[in-house]
């Protein structure tokens, strides 16, 4: 081992406090990178393998009723590879344990009793229903797990108003239901939503669809145009009540998964980038300063005749050792957190397998990136020192600014003790700026961790306190005359009822289009109150259509513009409607019309398809039971249940990220403050020891040394709060998620917590350094500095 390497080992040990805090900084950057990229890749891999294995369809179409013979014509459409028809329908499950009616879907399986050609099921337990048995069904794993069902259990299902009993023979995953939720909800509700697969004959009989299909699913031949196939498919299905075919992009489960993957990809890039940027900056500052503190040693080596290269190599090795330690910590933590993050996804996304993948290149990339960044910081400092004449390097660095000027004039009226830190801050403005900025960067980390709680709170507040003011939302099996609302209003426990008409449409503006539902609301509706950006109620327009601001942005339209609305029900008419107003929404995309105007558009009478209810809480449970029994009720969504699910699902996710990022914020604050203080002590220990000899107490000396940092921290924290706001805007701006919006709302409590965490971390670092000040060697002050 060369002498320089021995020096390296001893320095490493002597500076262990600094080494460790810097390694933790690197580790935090590496951990974020490893965590977000690996969890993204794992999710993507699980999706791809499940889609391939189960032959997930690429185009989906629903019809009112089409003869099976039509499938042959569909198969002939150029570009179609495989087509399969099936019968699907709404199902309500009468499940004893559920407090509100369980909504769901039932889908037919081929007569043969084989797996379907497309959208094959992956059985976790049991088998598919026998072809001859009409009372057997397979059930989706999410519901089965939520209620701990096993093959052999029975369920009572209301299909088309008739009660049927099915024996569960298999528990399955399906590529169509990787994400399952009640329609329109951005959160899974495993206990309240179910998918069942039964023999085709059983399902067809229940819905009076013998010899017919209601859904066609198909795959495309290589190179086929999805748009062309969809257009032709729509043409073929139109006479049979086609509701508009759509590609995977609009398949609800797939879209939600893609949105989440897109979100993850954004976060996997932006958050580590922000974090790595911060870590790089801090490494530059901290390591640079550490090398600066060894300038006399470097100059001595140079004076002894060492050429620059071995000196640079020596410090590069030092950095490499720190990076190695940091990367090892970071990779371990990142893999652990990534696996944990993936665990958080399991309740959202039902894959048969969701293994955690950590490709080898990822930790390597992280380690190399951290080393490159750290080396940059060190080499810059090293270059400065090596360029000095050896003799000058051997002298302690004298703050050049102390020849008067601004720094000289500052604080004439203050005491001499206050002037030392003040001039320290102003005499090296660049260093001060870097320190302040470094500490400030700790604040956004904590805010980024905590702000999701605020965002979720404000989402819930906007959507469920301000906009949707009802307690429950009832979907009818099919549109009914308006008197159905009056009937429902008379049910015991119902305080108010408002009818709504919801119609699937495709909205087009120039080349852009979106599939969504238009909601028809009565003028003066009180259970659903559209609001503008200032949260003022927006009156429901008598003419035209109100669109959500987010949708309008994506369609590229403004109030007053004309959009084309194709109704995907009944006669499939196309209308040009003016955008009458823009409204706020959080979940999905809103399009609103006055209910009378919507019905006129449909050339239908006064019909409602949904009813919003305000309910007496004391009578609620009885009401839910009653609604479950009513034949024309397809599903009942209860706000309180939804909010509880929301809390359960989101709380875990948010807590993980809050804890992680808060830890990182602490690491940054400690990293910068502790290292600044240690370097200050290294540079000025002699001065401080001299003051102790002159009769200054430990407390006074610590105050003089730490005051500089205290000022830096006090400036940094407000700056950090501003940066936090900016970072949150940056990350949310990079999001592209149509399923739901995250408002950039940061509460005062979050800001206060972040500020306190950083102040606390700074204080703790100061206390540690203060103990070193107490141990200053006074006798050394009388000797020459070495």
């Amino acid at each position, binding site marked *: 081992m060369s002498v320089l390497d021995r020096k390296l080992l001893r320095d490493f040990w002597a500076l262990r406090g600094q080494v460790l805090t810097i390694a933790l900084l690197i580790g935090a950057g590496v951990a974020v990178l490893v965590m977000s990229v690996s969890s993204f890749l794992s999710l993507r891999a699980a999706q791809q393998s499940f889609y391939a294995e189960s032959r997930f369809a690429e185009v989906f179409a629903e019809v009112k009723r089409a003869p099976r013979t039509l499938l042959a014509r569909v198969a002939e459409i150029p570009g179609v590879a495989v087509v399969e028809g099936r019968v699907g329908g709404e199902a309500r499950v009468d499940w004893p344990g559920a407090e509100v009616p369980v909504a769901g879907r039932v889908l037919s399986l081929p007569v043969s009793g084989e797996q379907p050609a497309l959208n094959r099921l992956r059985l976790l337990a049991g088998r598919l229903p026998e072809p001859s048995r009409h009372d057997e069904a397979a059930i989706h794993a999410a519901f089965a797990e939520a209620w701990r069902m096993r093959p052999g259990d029975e369920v009572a299902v209301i299909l088309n108003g008739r009660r049927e009993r099915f024996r569960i023979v298999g528990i399955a995953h399906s590529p169509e239901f990787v994400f399952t939720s009640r329609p329109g909800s951005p959160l899974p509700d495993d206990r309240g939503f179910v998918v069942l697969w039964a023999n085709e004959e059983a399902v067809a009989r229940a819905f009076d669809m013998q010899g017919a299909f209601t859904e066609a699913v198909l795959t495309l031949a290589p190179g086929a145009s999805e748009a062309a196939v969809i257009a032709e498919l729509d043409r073929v299905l139109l006479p049979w009540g086609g509701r508009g075919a759509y590609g995977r992009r609009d398949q609800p489960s797939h879209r939600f998964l893609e949105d989440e993957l897109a979100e993850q990809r954004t976060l996997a890039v932006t958050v580590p980038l922000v974090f790595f940027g911060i870590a790089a900056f801090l490494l530059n500052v901290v390591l640079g300063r550490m090398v600066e503190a060894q300038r006399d040693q470097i100059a001595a080596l140079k004076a002894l005749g060492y050429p620059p290269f071995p000196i640079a190599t020596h410090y590069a090795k030092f950095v490499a050792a720190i990076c190695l330690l940091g990367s090892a910590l970071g990779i371990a933590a990142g893999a652990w957190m990534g696996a944990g993050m993936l665990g958080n996804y399991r309740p959202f996304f039902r894959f048969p397998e969701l293994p955690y993948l950590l490709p080898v290149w990822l930790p390597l990339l992280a380690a190399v990136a951290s080393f490159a960044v750290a080396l940059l910081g060190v080499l810059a400092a090293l270059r400065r020192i090596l360029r000095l004449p050896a003799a000058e390097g051997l002298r302690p660095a*004298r703050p050049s600014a102390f020849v008067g000027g601004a720094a000289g004039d500052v604080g004439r009226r203050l005491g001499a003790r206050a002037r030392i830190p003040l001039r320290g801050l102003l005499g090296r403005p660049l260093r001060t700026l870097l320190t302040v900025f470094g500490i400030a960067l700790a604040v956004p980390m904590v805010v980024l961790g905590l702000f999701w709680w605020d965002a979720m709170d404000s989402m819930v507040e906007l959507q469920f306190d301000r906009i949707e003011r009802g307690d429950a939302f009832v979907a009818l099996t099919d549109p009914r005359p308006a008197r159905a609302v009056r009937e429902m209003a008379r049910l015991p426990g119902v305080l108010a009822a408002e009818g709504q008409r919801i119609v699937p449409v495709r909205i087009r503006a120039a080349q852009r289009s979106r599939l969504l539902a238009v909601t028809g609301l009565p003028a003066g509706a009180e259970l659903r109150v559209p609001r503008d950006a200032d949260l003022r109620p927006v009156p429901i327009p008598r003419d035209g259509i109100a669109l959500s601001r987010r949708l309008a942005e994506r369609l590229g339209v403004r109030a007053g513009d004309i959009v084309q609305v194709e109704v995907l029900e009944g006669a499939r008419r196309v209308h040009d409607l003016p955008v009458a107003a823009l409204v706020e929404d959080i979940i999905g995309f809103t399009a609103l019309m006055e209910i009378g105007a919507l019905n006129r558009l449909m050339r239908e009478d006064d019909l409602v398809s949904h009813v919003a209810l305000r309910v007496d809480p004391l009578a609620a449970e009885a009401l839910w039971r009653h609604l479950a029994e009513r034949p024309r009720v397809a599903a009942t969504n209860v706000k309180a249940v939804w909010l509880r699910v929301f809390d359960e699902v989101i709380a875990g996710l948010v807590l993980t990220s809050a804890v992680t990022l808060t830890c990182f914020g602490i690491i940054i604050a400690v990293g910068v403050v502790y290292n600044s203080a240690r370097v200050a002590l290294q540079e000025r220990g002699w001065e401080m020891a001299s003051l102790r*000899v002159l009769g200054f107490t430990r407390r006074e000396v610590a105050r003089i040394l730490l005051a500089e940092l205290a000022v830096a921290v006090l400036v940094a924290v407000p700056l950090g709060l501003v940066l936090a706001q900016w970072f949150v805007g940056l990350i949310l701006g990079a999001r592209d998620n149509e399923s739901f919006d995250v408002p950039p709302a940061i509460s005062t409590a979050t800001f206060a917590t972040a500020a306190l965490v950083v102040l606390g971390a700074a204080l703790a670092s100061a206390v540690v350094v203060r103990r070193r000040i107490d141990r200053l060697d006074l006798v050394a002050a*009388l000797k020459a500095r070495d």
Partner: protein
Amino acid sequence: MLRRTPMTTASDAAPPAGKTEATGAPPVFVARGLCKSYGSGDATVHALRDLDLDILQGEFVVLLGPSGSGKSTLLNILGGLDAPTSGRAAWRDHELTGADEAALTAYRRDHVGFVFQFYNLIPSLTARENVELVAEIARDPMRPEEALALVGLSHRLDHFPGQLSGGEQQRVAVARAIVKRPDALLCDEPTGALDVETGKLVLSAIARANREVGATTVVITHNAAIAGMADRVLRMGGGRIVATERNARRLAPEELVW
């Protein structure tokens, strides 16, 4: 606080090498049987061996000796910076041995002025401010300008240490030491880093402080020429005082030759 102890010097029989013969002034520093060793076993270094010493009020003492003779260790103990391994040291009625850190800090703050070999000025403070720094924590300081005038630096008040020569910096250090009107002025090789002429300027500043502030002054040096300006010269070697000389007449620093 320092423990106050009754004076015991009178009961000692034969005055040892470092002790003064009976004169009018009372002793302010008293050391008895001081030993200081570092390390253990074969590696033990004895910096002081059973050293006795009295220094009188207002006396100007030069401690002379080569490196390793123990003079710095002795000064450190007298200044409350270091503790002896055995024996005792006292300042007037304050026991220095066994005193805690806070008491020693208070002792240095209230009674002692230090001058270092390498000045140890705060680079970010001007000459005036460096002096003011100590004035701020002293009980009855003179004005910083007054202290700087005593060392002949009235014209350099607002210069930073980086703008001053070594001799000027050391005179600022002397001004900083005397601004509190110390009872004792302890100087560790004050001219060690200076040339002859500059050294003389610094020494006159110290001599003037000794005279005008009345501070008991101890200067350690390995430069025998400085001995001429002392009341008493203690030669040290091997951790002991090996010889004591009393100057019949103190030379002015300008008269010193080296």
